[in-house]
């Protein structure tokens, strides 16, 4: 069995997003970058499958400048059980949107012929939740998105996918692509010896030309970034007398805010 894990490096969830200058540019120079939290579930799931089925090979694939993604790949992918990594590093991709990223990842995946592709359900920076589904469509394979449970048997999978107020049980034949949701597993942390050993695992850096793919044109333009609207000051009710505070809050919500 061969598994690909699609990963992305993102600013961690404690990051404050600031827009600077009159052009309100997104200043990303000071971000602390980590593995996208949902991708960690994908990596962990791949490693657990490998533990049950020895002989499984796991390849982590990402897009980005090699010197920037190297540490994340090493520590969060190779040191926890991925066997090798591929970095598509191409300045032409700096401006790629979800459609473009999907085309490039699909080209990398075609060279690998995997049985199972695992990805996070979305990256917590762009929040687009598109790339995994687009990749499956390009490759003409099944996908199940937002998965909280995955079982493999006899060249097929059964997945539990989160929907409003419940779950859908989905069956598909391999090869297939799964996007992973919190709840699927509990990702392990890399051990120090394994981080040391990860340096010896292969990391291949390729360009679009080497994958035989043209960097695709964008499907939409970014016109501007804007801060979220600022909120009015909080009306604080002292809670010393809980009964009076509860009554006053209920009154304000009904008469002033008109929300109950």
């Amino acid at each position, binding site marked *: 069995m061969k598994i690909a894990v699609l990963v992305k490096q993102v600013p961690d969830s404690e990051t404050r997003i600031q827009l600077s200058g009159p052009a309100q540019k997104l200043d990303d120079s000071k971000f602390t970058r980590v593995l996208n939290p*949902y991708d960690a579930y994908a990596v962990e799931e791949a490693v657990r499958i490998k533990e049950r089925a020895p002989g499984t090979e796991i390849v982590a694939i990402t897009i980005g400048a090699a010197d920037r993604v190297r540490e994340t790949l090493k520590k969060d992918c190779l040191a926890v059980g991925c066997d090798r990594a591929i970095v598509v590093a191409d300045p032409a991709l700096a401006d790629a949107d979800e459609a473009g990223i999907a085309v490039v990842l699909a080209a990398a995946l075609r060279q690998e012929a995997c049985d199972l592709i695992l990805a996070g359900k979305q990256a917590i920076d762009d929040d687009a939740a598109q790339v995994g589904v687009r990749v499956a469509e390009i490759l003409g394979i099944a996908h199940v*998105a937002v998965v909280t449970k995955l079982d493999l048997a006899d060249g097929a999978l059964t997945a539990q996918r989160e929907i409003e107020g419940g779950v859908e049980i989905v069956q598909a034949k391999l090869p297939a692509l799964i996007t992973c949701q919190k709840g699927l597993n509990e990702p392990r942390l890399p051990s120090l010896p394994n981080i040391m050993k990860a340096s010896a695992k292969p990391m291949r850096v390729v360009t679009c030309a080497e994958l035989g793919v043209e960097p695709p044109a964008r499907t939409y333009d970014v016109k501007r970034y804007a801060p979220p609207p600022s909120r009015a000051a909080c009306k604080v009710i002292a809670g010393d007398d809980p009964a009076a505070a509860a009554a006053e809050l209920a009154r304000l919500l009904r008469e002033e805010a008109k929300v109950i």
Partner: protein
Amino acid sequence: MPNIAVFIEQRDGQVKKVAWQMISEARRLVDQAGGEVWGVCLHAAPCDAAHQAGAHGAHRLFTAEHELFKLYDSAAWATAVAAFARAKRPDLLMVGATALGKDLAPKLAQKLGAACVSDSIAVKWDGNAWEVRRPIFAGKCYVDVVPRTSPAVVGVRPNAFALSEGRGGAAAAESFDPGVASLTPLARVTEVQAAAGRKVELTEAETIVSGGRGIKGPEHYHLIEELAAVLGAAAGASRAVVDAGWVPHSHQVGQTGKTVSPNLYIACGISGAIQHLAGMSSSKCIVAINKDPNAPIFKVADYGITGDLFAILPLLQREVEKLKS
């Protein structure tokens, strides 16, 4: 003419409210831009959406009936909506950002070679082009984008658009060929299981009551659920509470949980870590109940009580019951 098609999601004949919200907004847009609003509905049994679609502002309703539309099938549903889009050439294709819609929209966009703008909260027509606003970083920042493709798929967050009603009579209905006759399904939904005890879904709820570390233990989460019940609200939680295993992760609000924008969000015992604020600060009215007057949650709240939630929540519940009776 910039016509807007709106995907009308139904499950067992029940239409998702976001569909009517999108039709309402689409009608406001085409009234400026010219063009028409078209509803698109896939169903397995006859579904009478024409009256409601018309009442919310749709000019026409296009339907396709097939047994593959009983349960969600990504390949079949995307094939059908893509067939509609190729035949009728709408300029925008709005799809609600529900569990189903978030799956359908990118697949559909890929089939059409189209842009997909996920989870949008506003759409503008500037006379020449569409401008679509969406939150990124779970709402810490907004971005305005202009699609280069026609059609462009636009995912729309539930509750982002206001409903309007009484716009007109029934939309003129016609059926279309979904083009799924020879399709071999790739993945098959075999079962839909409802979660026990969950009545209102977080992402669609108009009111949410959320609990944080301040509730002190899973045995107190019923205080959140009981207040939610009298408000007809969904019950949510902070990451701390989910990571501690007090409630399932499907309750989590925040950057690594659900991003929500209800009319009323009541945060109980939630200090307001930045990753939580990101997921709920676009709520229309925010209430914070917290012991610590310096908790960051008060910076985004409209109303706050600094006090003991164990004393306040049951009293608040009683006050709401009084108002509702």
